[in-house]
Structure formats: structure tokens, C-alpha cells
């Protein structure tokens, strides 16, 4: 009896000890990277991240080792980070969302530098600014771009025409060249049609203007520059829309936004190419009345993702062959037909899949607007802490929008909050 009790306790101790060891090795920061086996090539992406026909074709094209694809729902980055910390089950190939790439660049040691497996030969096929997003300051490339999110101006042709504004896409492009032109059109529209407010949400617009610049909140040498003119200009542009009273205060994706698009109270939206899907699914009666024009004051990018190879990959060369194949211009054009995944390789823009006219946009060819936009998106350095530092600017801009603070007071408060956050993250 005594013996068995001791054995039992010993067993418990062993289990407990094993658990502790397991946990502590998990907390180790990647020093214990266990190579995956060569029998399978595991690949992770989020739902809708890759075109279905492209995926099926790629799996058939590479029978050895067999590609095992897993669709990971929910908070993708969180699950990837947790798996990295766990140390087991790390995929060979993983998707990385555009909004997460900046914060993963400091972790470049967990990914294969694609240049070391021969990426130099294909990097030139992709939009340069997009490749730059996945390039570390010392020149490592950790991801090959899947797609990009160039912005355009979506507008209701019928409502523009009724208000005496130009309605033909070419004429809209001619007249609405800058934000001032756009706002002037908004004032004219409101005079004729008081319910139609040109700016769906001025705080959303702020992000567009920041995205049009070549600098963001933190400079390459890790200095806070969010209090400088380029941010203040975006701030003032957004505030101007509010003071002109053409701000609809309706965040995109909200129920009011969905209803407003169809009812004509939200006659325009400026957003990435993928917003077309949202608008299409939101409206019932206004299909065919929508048109596309270039973004006033130039394009910006929203969204767009990457495929990366982790250091755990047993055969990085093979993994690279797979992603190179998947993201060829031909396959990117197919993915666009599959799920509106907007290609990151400019050669795809000339493929018939993208040259198709879109009935929803009255027979307009969307690529004529988004293609040139994608090629001329300004390059801005995005720090890993960019999003955290940007948050106070959004928060404070909302207080100006509701009239509870003046623009100057809100600006001062946003800058001081952002500085505190930046300082905490080690930004000078």
C-alpha cells in the first residue's frame, strides 16, 4: 500500500514536473525551434485569404510532400503568436495580414529570409512598396505579397447627376482632384439634396489622408513624428469636413452605413478595392448606379496580406517553390475571380480576369481605376507601434466630431497621449 501510494505520488510529480518543463520551454523565445518533418508541408491562412481554385490547383501541383492546408478562423495573428510560443505545430507556410506585418518584422528571426531561398528572381514582379512592407530595416524579406488594397472613390452616379455634379467617371476624376474639390462638391450636393452627405465618416477619412502621405507617426530612426505637419494636415482635412457639415458620422460597416448606401444618404465611399464586396452585399436597389473614380489627392492602401515561411519549415526551398507558384501573376488573376483578392503582381492587371467589365459599376472596368492606383501608392515606413500611437488621434478626433471638444484642444490631448504611448514603447 505504502509503495503504490508513493508510486502514485511519484507519477503525479512526474506529470507536474513535465507540465512545468513544457511550460517553461514554451516561454523560451524561439530558441527551441523544432524542425517540422518532411512528410507534410503545412500551410495556414484565414478564411477567404487565398482563392479556392488556386489553392486546389497548388495542392494538386505539389504532390510531394503533400500540402496540408488549414483554414484558421478568428484572430489569426493571435493564434499564430500563441503557436510560436507553444513551440509545436508551427506551420511551414503561414499567411500574415497587412495590418500585422509591421509588428512581426522585429520577429524576422522566426521566419525564413526569402532572399536566402532565391526570392530575388521574383521580387521584381510585385509592387515595390508592398514588398517593402515585408522587408526589415536590414534588408530581410519575410513575406511574398498575396494582395493589396488600393483605394478608390465609389460614388452614386444618379445622385451626382441629380445635384448637377459631373457623373461620368472621367469627368468626376477631372473635377474631384483634391480634397478641397471633393468638399466643394459635397457642399454643392448638400445644397441641392440636404439628406446626402458626401463624407460618410470624417474620422474614417482621416486615415485615408494619413495613408496618402510618405510618413506616418514614427520615423525610420524610431522618433515620434505624429505631432508634425503631415499628421496635422490629415487632422485638419478631417475637421474641415466636419465644419462644412458634410460629415455623415456613419462608420463604414455599421447598419446605418449599409442602409445609407442604398437610400442615397451616403452617396460616396472612399475605400480599398475589397470594399466593393461590402457595398455589393449591402445594397439591393442601387446596383448598377455605382461608379468608380480615383481617390481625391491620390491613392492610399488599406489591407493586403503576405505568405511567409517559418524557420520550422523542414524544406524552405520547397516551401518557397509553393508560394512562388501560388502567387504567380496567373494565379493571382484567378484568385481575383475566386474571391476578389486584388493582385499584388502588376502583370495580373492585364489578364482577362481583371479586364472584365462590372455590371454593378454600370459596365465600368474596376481595374482601370485600381490598377493605376496600386502602382502609385506612396511608400511610408510603418513602425511596429504605429497602430498603438495612432489610436489617441482617432479617439480625440471623435470628440471633435460630436462637438464636445474644439479641434485644437483635441489635437493637444491626442499628441500628449500618443507621446506617452510612444515613449512607453521605447520611441524617442
Amino acid at each position: 500500500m505504502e509503495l503504490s501510494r508513493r508510486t502514485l505520488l511519484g507519477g503525479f510529480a512526474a506529470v507536474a514536473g513535465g507540465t512545468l518543463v513544457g511550460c517553461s520551454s514554451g516561454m523560451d523565445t524561439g530558441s527551441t525551434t523544432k524542425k517540422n518533418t518532411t512528410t507534410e508541408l503545412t500551410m495556414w491562412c484565414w478564411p477567404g485569404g487565398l482563392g479556392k481554385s488556386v489553392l486546389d490547383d497548388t495542392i494538386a501541383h505539389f504532390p510531394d510532400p503533400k500540402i496540408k492546408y488549414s483554414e484558421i478562423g478568428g484572430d489569426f495573428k493571435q493564434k499564430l503568436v500563441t503557436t510560436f510560443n507553444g513551440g509545436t505545430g508551427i506551420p511551414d507556410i503561414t499567411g500574415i495580414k497587412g495590418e500585422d506585418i509591421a509588428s512581426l518584422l522585429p520577429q524576422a528571426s522566426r521566419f525564413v529570409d526569402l532572399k536566402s531561398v532565391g526570392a530575388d528572381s521574383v521580387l521584381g514582379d510585385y509592387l515595390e512598396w508592398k514588398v517593402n512592407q515585408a522587408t526589415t530595416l536590414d534588408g530581410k524579406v519575410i513575406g511574398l505579397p498575396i494582395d493589396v488594397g488600393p483605394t478608390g472613390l465609389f460614388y452614386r452616379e444618379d445622385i451626382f447627376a441629380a445635384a448637377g455634379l459631373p457623373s461620368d467617371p472621367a469627368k468626376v476624376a477631372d473635377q474631384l482632384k483634391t480634397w478641397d474639390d471633393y468638399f466643394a462638391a459635397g457642399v454643392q450636393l448638400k445644397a441641392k439634396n440636404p439628406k446626402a452627405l458626401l463624407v460618410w465618416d470624417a474620422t474614417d477619412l482621416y486615415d485615408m489622408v494619413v495613408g496618402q502621405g510618405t510618413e506616418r507617426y514614427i520615423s525610420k530612426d524610431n522618433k515620434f513624428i505624429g505631432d508634425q505637419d503631415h499628421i496635422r494636415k490629415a487632422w485638419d482635412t478631417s475637421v474641415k469636413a466636419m465644419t462644412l457639415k458634410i460629415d455623415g458620422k456613419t462608420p463604414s460597416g455599421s447598419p446605418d452605413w449599409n442602409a445609407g448606401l442604398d437610400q442615397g444618404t451616403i452617396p460616396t465611399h472612399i475605400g480599398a478595392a475589397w470594399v466593393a464586396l461590402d457595398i455589393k452585399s449591402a445594397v439591393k436597389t442601387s446596383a448598377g448606379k455605382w461608379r468608380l473614380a480615383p481617390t481625391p489627392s491620390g491613392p492610399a492602401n488599406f489591407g493586403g496580406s503576405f505568405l511567409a515561411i517559418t524557420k520550422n519549415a523542414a524544406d524552405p526551398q520547397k516551401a518557397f517553390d509553393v508560394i512562388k507558384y501560388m502567387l504567380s501573376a496567373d494565379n493571382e488573376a484567378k484568385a481575383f475571380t475566386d474571391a476578389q483578392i486584388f493582385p499584388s503582381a502588376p502583370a495580373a492587371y492585364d489578364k482577362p480576369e481583371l479586364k472584365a467589365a462590372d455590371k454593378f459599376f454600370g459596365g465600368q472596368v474596376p481595374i482601370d481605376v485600381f490598377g493605376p492606383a496600386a502602382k502609385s501608392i506612396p511608400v511610408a515606413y510603418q513602425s511596429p507601434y504605429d497602430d498603438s500611437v495612432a489610436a489617441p488621434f482617432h479617439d480625440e478626433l471623435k470628440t471633435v466630431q460630436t462637438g464636445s471638444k474644439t479641434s485644437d484642444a483635441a489635437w493637444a490631448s491626442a499628441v500628449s497621449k500618443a507621446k506617452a504611448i510612444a515613449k512607453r514603447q521605447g520611441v524617442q
Partner: protein
Amino acid sequence: MTSTATVSAAATEPLAGRGQRPRRGIWSYWRFYLALSPFYVLFAVFGLYPMVSTIVLAFQRWDGLSARRFTGLDNFAFLIQDPTFWTALENTVVLFFMSTVPTLVLALLLAVMLQSAVRFTNVYRIAYFIPNVTSLVAMAIFFSSIFSTNFGLVNAALRSLGIPQQDWLGQPWGIKIAISTMIVWQWVGYNTLIYLAGLQAIPKDQYEAAKVDGAGAVRTFFSITLPQLRPVVLFTVIMSTIGGLQTFTEPQVMVGNSGGTGQSGMTVVLFFYRAAFLDNDYGYAAAIALSIFVLVLLFTAINWRIFRGRGEDR
């Protein structure tokens, strides 16, 4: 009596025979500990370990992937001077009062009404409980369309009454009303059922005695029902405190991660979520989590003192 004596005699005899042991060692109960162990093992893995590591993490800097760095009280120092934390704290407390008080009052009224209802009592019980088991995210989306400015149900009702429409999810107070309405809607049924169980435990003869003495319904409620329900009320208040101070899903789905206009929907847990999963500042998030723990402890202690009552105070 005799059987007990026999058993205890039989149990002590062999021990006495062996002589020296005054009582049975703790290890001789190993079968019982083994039977209980699944709970403790699960608790250690899923409860204790995360708790301890959160406390450790609160004294470190960690971005989720790189090496952890011990920074002492840095996280707490930053927490105290972070204006967003104080906004979140204030919002949480305000939302707690705006949702808990109406919830419990409504639940008590409903429970008393249900107690006296004769027909379809079970139907009502199920109906009241349904909100509690409905998916919170789905309901938050539903409520945000009810409260939306131009095409929402609430504003449609206001317009038909000739009252100007309100920008519910764009105004600081509107956000709080919308969030607390949803919390009330969700938790009234749950608390009603608990009160109903409490009501059924009150002896019928007390009510009969009150009736004989000529007490009316109101007098009976305040002199018999409410005092007898005191322990149940304490339970619901503490449960609501713990739940209410952890409000997260409702504001996150209704006004987003920023907490909406002027951060008026930013609760402490939402702030925690933002620090950990959006800013990748896990150490700071752990410090915020500890502040929630302290807050819950504080409020529970206050409620305990208020609702415990004089009878059990000794």
C-alpha cells in the same frame, strides 16, 4: 448509537494494538484525495497557472514573442498616469450602476409577479431565461442596429412620437444607455429565476400570519419578502458585480475597440484587450487585469457590508 460505537471501536482497535499512532496520517486518505484530484489538477492547469503567470507578467515587459524583460513596477506606474485607464475605470463603474440597479429591481418585481401568476408560469420562466443563453455577439449586433441613428428602431419610435432622433452610438451618454440596456435585457431573466427560487423558500405560514394581521401586499413585500430574500439579494449583487465589472463584448461589438466617442464605451476589460491583443503590450495588459481583480474585490467587499444585514453582522 450502538452501531456507531461498534464501528468507532473497531476502527480504533487495530491502531491501539499497534500502539503509538495518536491519529491517522494524512496520506491514509489518499483515495479521497485521488477522487477529488481531477478538480484540483484542472484548476491548477487552467486556473492557478494562468493566474500566477499573469501576476508574474504584470512585472515584465513582453510583446508576445521576444524575450520577457523584468521591469519591476513600471507597468503599474504607467497605469496610474494613463488617462485612458481612468476613463475606462470611470466608465466601468458608471455602466455597472446603470445596468445592475435596473436589472435587480426589475428582476425582483418580475419574480414577485411570477410567484403570484397561476397560468403558464413555466412559459414565462423560459421566456425570461432565453436572453441569457443567446449569443452575446449576435445580440450586440442586433442592439447596435436597434440604436443606429438613421434607420434604427429606437429612433423610429422617437420620430413617431414627435421627439427628435438621437445619435445613440455617437454620443457619450447614448453609448452608455445602449450598452446598459443590453446588459439589463440579458441579465433580468437570470436574476428573476434566482429570486423566484428564493421566494419559494420563504415559509407560507409567514404570509398567512401577515394576512391574518391585516397586512397589505406592499407591507408584506417590505416586511416579509425582502428581509427573507436578503441572502439571495446578496448573491445576485455579488454575481452582478463580478459580471458587471468585466463588461467587454457589448461595447466591443457596438462601438469597436476604441470605445466609441470620447472613449465613453471603453471599459477596463476592453482596455485590457486593447493593450494585450492590439498593442502587443502583454505585461501592461496583465497589470490592467490585476487592477480589475482589485476592483472586483473592493466592490464585493462593499456590497457584502451593505447587504449582509444586521442579523448576521455579529
